[in-house]
């Protein structure tokens, strides 16, 4: 058989739709909880309304918080999760969710988290999946949509995305800092001294190494252990233990729950049908109505082909993006060129300090900037260790002092960064006038050398 016919056959293969429906329901619920939690913590105000200045992603400078109206974006995002969960007007709901959630994430890159990026691209993926064909309000009402079976690739695409996240996170851990110096866990773990039992254990050096190696091994193997039927249950226990530990040790919010629930997609449909039966019994929903043995059909061949084509492209991009760092010289951890969107999670403890100097070229007067006048503590911390933040902030200062009447201010920065327990070193060239440098994706020549080597991927 040729590759092509194998592929065609795979794409025609169908599977029980219950896993996809369960995934949709839980995804919606967890997103709703996340949004409510975010609001309840006062973070909408604190992160998106209170600050005077926001750090933008390159090319997305137009995405800004809209003052008090920012709450509305969160409300829309929160409402869409309910629609997604119950599968009512699913396609529109998941598009609204993807757009509003992504908009929120793009408003300020200070809050960048790999988790949020994961949610963004996962919801993008879900736009193209028939997650509403089964056990949804849409399917309840619309007989032509209702289908007990969906193409197997639609379920597999979620597994693939999860697999990429884990495996790439594991690859990223194969470096000398993580494996040979137990960094940054060696810094982070002892700080959890107040935990019962674990607290004392976390002071031990061997524990730091054990956690580092186990973490890398976990990330690299878990997708495969979940895929294989024989190891699946064991793998799921590992998923729970691993994410429960990260929940206890680090302030990472909802993410552990999202990953644990997502991992359910790897199980056989029997489990998902049981879950749906339970839900049906509780809410007195007639589950039989969905069990029509039909296979989901895309509205047209073109839609089907377009979906498959788009998602193939999506996955190729996903597989390549994390390797874009190879295009840049220098140490990735130091320059952070190609660091984000690559599942490089928990790899760095980076602290920085940036003291900006404004020079009035006409009068030759100079003075230092009080960062707290412009940035929140959180923003300042993020800014001080990341070059793209430093540059963007410098341009903001240029604009500000131009308005204050300095015609051509030069902005220089004295900055120091410490990475993974190393002594702090000068970071940005203090003689570089940052106003002369335009933000771009090109290699940043104005970052001073790292003078050390982190071996590995």
């Amino acid at each position, binding site marked *: 058989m040729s590759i092509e016919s194998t592929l065609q056959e795979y794409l025609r293969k169908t599977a029980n739709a219950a896993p996809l429906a369960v995934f949709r329901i839980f995804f919606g619920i967890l997103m709703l909880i996340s949004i409510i939690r975010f609001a309840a913590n006062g973070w909408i105000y604190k992160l998106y309304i209170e600050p005077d200045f926001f750090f933008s992603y390159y090319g997305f400078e137009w995405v800004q918080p809209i003052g008090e109206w920012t709450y509305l974006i969160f409300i829309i995002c929160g409402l869409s999760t309910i629609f997604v969960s119950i599968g009512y007007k699913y396609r529109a709901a998941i598009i609204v969710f993807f757009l509003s959630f992504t908009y929120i994430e793009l408003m300020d890159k200070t809050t960048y988290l790999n988790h949020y990026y994961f949610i963004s691209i996962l919801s993008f993926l879900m736009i193209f999946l028939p997650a509403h064909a089964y056990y949804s309000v849409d399917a309840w009402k619309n007989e032509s949509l209702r289908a007990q079976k969906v193409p197997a690739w639609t379920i597999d695409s979620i597994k693939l995305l999860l697999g990429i996240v884990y495996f790439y996170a594991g690859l990223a851990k194969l470096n000398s800092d993580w494996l040979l110096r137990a960094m940054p866990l060696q810094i982070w773990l002892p700080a959890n001294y*107040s935990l019962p039992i674990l607290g004392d254990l976390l*002071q*031990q050096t061997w524990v730091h190494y054990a956690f580092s190696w186990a973490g890398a091994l976990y990330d690299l193997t878990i997708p495969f252990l979940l895929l294989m039927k024989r190891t699946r249950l*064991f793998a799921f226990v590992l998923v729970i233990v691993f994410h429960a530990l990260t929940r206890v040790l680090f302030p990472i919010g909802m993410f552990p729950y999202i990953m644990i629930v997502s991992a359910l997609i790897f199980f056989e449909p029997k489990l998902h049908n049981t879950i749906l039966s339970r839900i049906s019994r509780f809410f007195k929903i007639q589950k039989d109505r969905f069990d029509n043995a039909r296979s989901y059909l895309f509205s047209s061949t073109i839609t089907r082909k377009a979906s498959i084509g788009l998602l193939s492209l999506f996955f190729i991009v996903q597989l390549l993006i994390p390797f874009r760092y190879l295009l840049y010289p220098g140490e990735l951890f130091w320059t952070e060129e190609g660091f984000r969107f690559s*599942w490089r999670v*928990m790899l760095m403890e980076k602290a920085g300090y940036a003291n900006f100097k404004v020079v009035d070229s006409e009068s030759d007067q100079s003075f230092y900037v009080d960062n707290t006048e412009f940035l929140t*503590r959180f923003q300042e911390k993020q800014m001080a260790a990341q070059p793209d933040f430093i540059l963007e902030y410098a341009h903001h200062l240029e604009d500000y002092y131009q308005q204050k009447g300095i015609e051509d201010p030069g902005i220089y920065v004295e900055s*120091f960064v410490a990475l993974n327990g190393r002594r*702090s070193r000068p970071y940005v060239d203090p003689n570089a006038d940052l106003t002369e440098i335009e933000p771009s994706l090109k290699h940043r020549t104005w970052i001073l050398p790292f003078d050390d080597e982190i071996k590995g991927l």
Partner: protein
Amino acid sequence: MRKFSFVFILGLILLWGCTDDNPSGPDADDFDREEILVNWADNIILPAFESFSTTTGELKTAGENFTTNPNQQTLQELRDAWKTSYLAWQHVSMFEMGKAMDVRFRDYLNTYPVSANESSPNADQTIQKNIQTGTYNLELPSLRDTQGFPALDYLLNGLGDSDDAILEYYTTHQDAVEYKKYINDLVTRMDQLTVEVLDHWESGYRDQFVSNSGNGANGSLDMMVNDYIFYYEKYLRAGKIGIPAGVSAISSGTPSPVRVEAYYSEGLSKALFMEALNATQNFFNGKHYGTQEMGESLASYLDYLNTMKEGADLTQLINNQFESARNQAENLNSDFVTQIETDNSEMLATYDELQKNVVFLKVDMLQALNINVDYVDADGD
């Protein structure tokens, strides 16, 4: 069942690992973070506040004596009480937490430059206006720079060129009654705020502070370290040296002697700075207030973490840098106003030395201690 036995064996292996006889790290019982909090609270913060509260009490009495009987002697006694209290203040200023934060203790006691009269940097609401109108509410945030130590500095040292000229305001001046009332209002308010903050520490906040020993942005340790660095950067480095020396945007980079702490009192600014520098270093080292005894603090915690990581001696680096800053500051004139006007470069050199420790404290130390700057989700997998 086979699956579960596998999990079981894994659990056994883990347990076996935990009971390893030869842990490679230091004994975890060696270091108790709560000890740091206890040392800070019982041996540094509380004694410093108690001592400071004694001085504000004495200041209040001296103020009353002076206003009942204004003469050369009572004026000098009030000045002495003010000076003693101002020096003691340098040991509590950095502890802006709990009640002190609620009442904006630092802002009400030591906002400078003072708004004395229409020629002051902030001329909207001045001491002279307050006295002339007689209607002022010192609890208003807009009146922060017309009260506290800097306001007393102006009233006791800045009203005239000679003691006789100053005394006139409290004796023969047409507003003498108002001047005296203002002095009393100031010292009463200072004492009252101090008693409030001290009471709060003594009636439960101390226990709350010490028992909140968990990690996280709201734990006492993280909170205190953040506040400490904030104080060092903003009030010690910038406030006492940098801003008057003209490194900040406030004066567009030109030296601004009027922004010196205790501007009107000749020769006190350096003493205040040195006292504050000592206080910050003592806090870092856990040195008890008013004695030579040492206890647990950031220094010993860093040492403990260092032995674990076999890293360079950060404690030594930070203490050396404190020394360098002190040595550089020794060159300064006892009056910073004079220093700035004659040779500002020495001030700038002091600023640079202080600056170097900002990097050690804010970058190296924060990294080593893994202090959270804020309560938000961080990355993980």
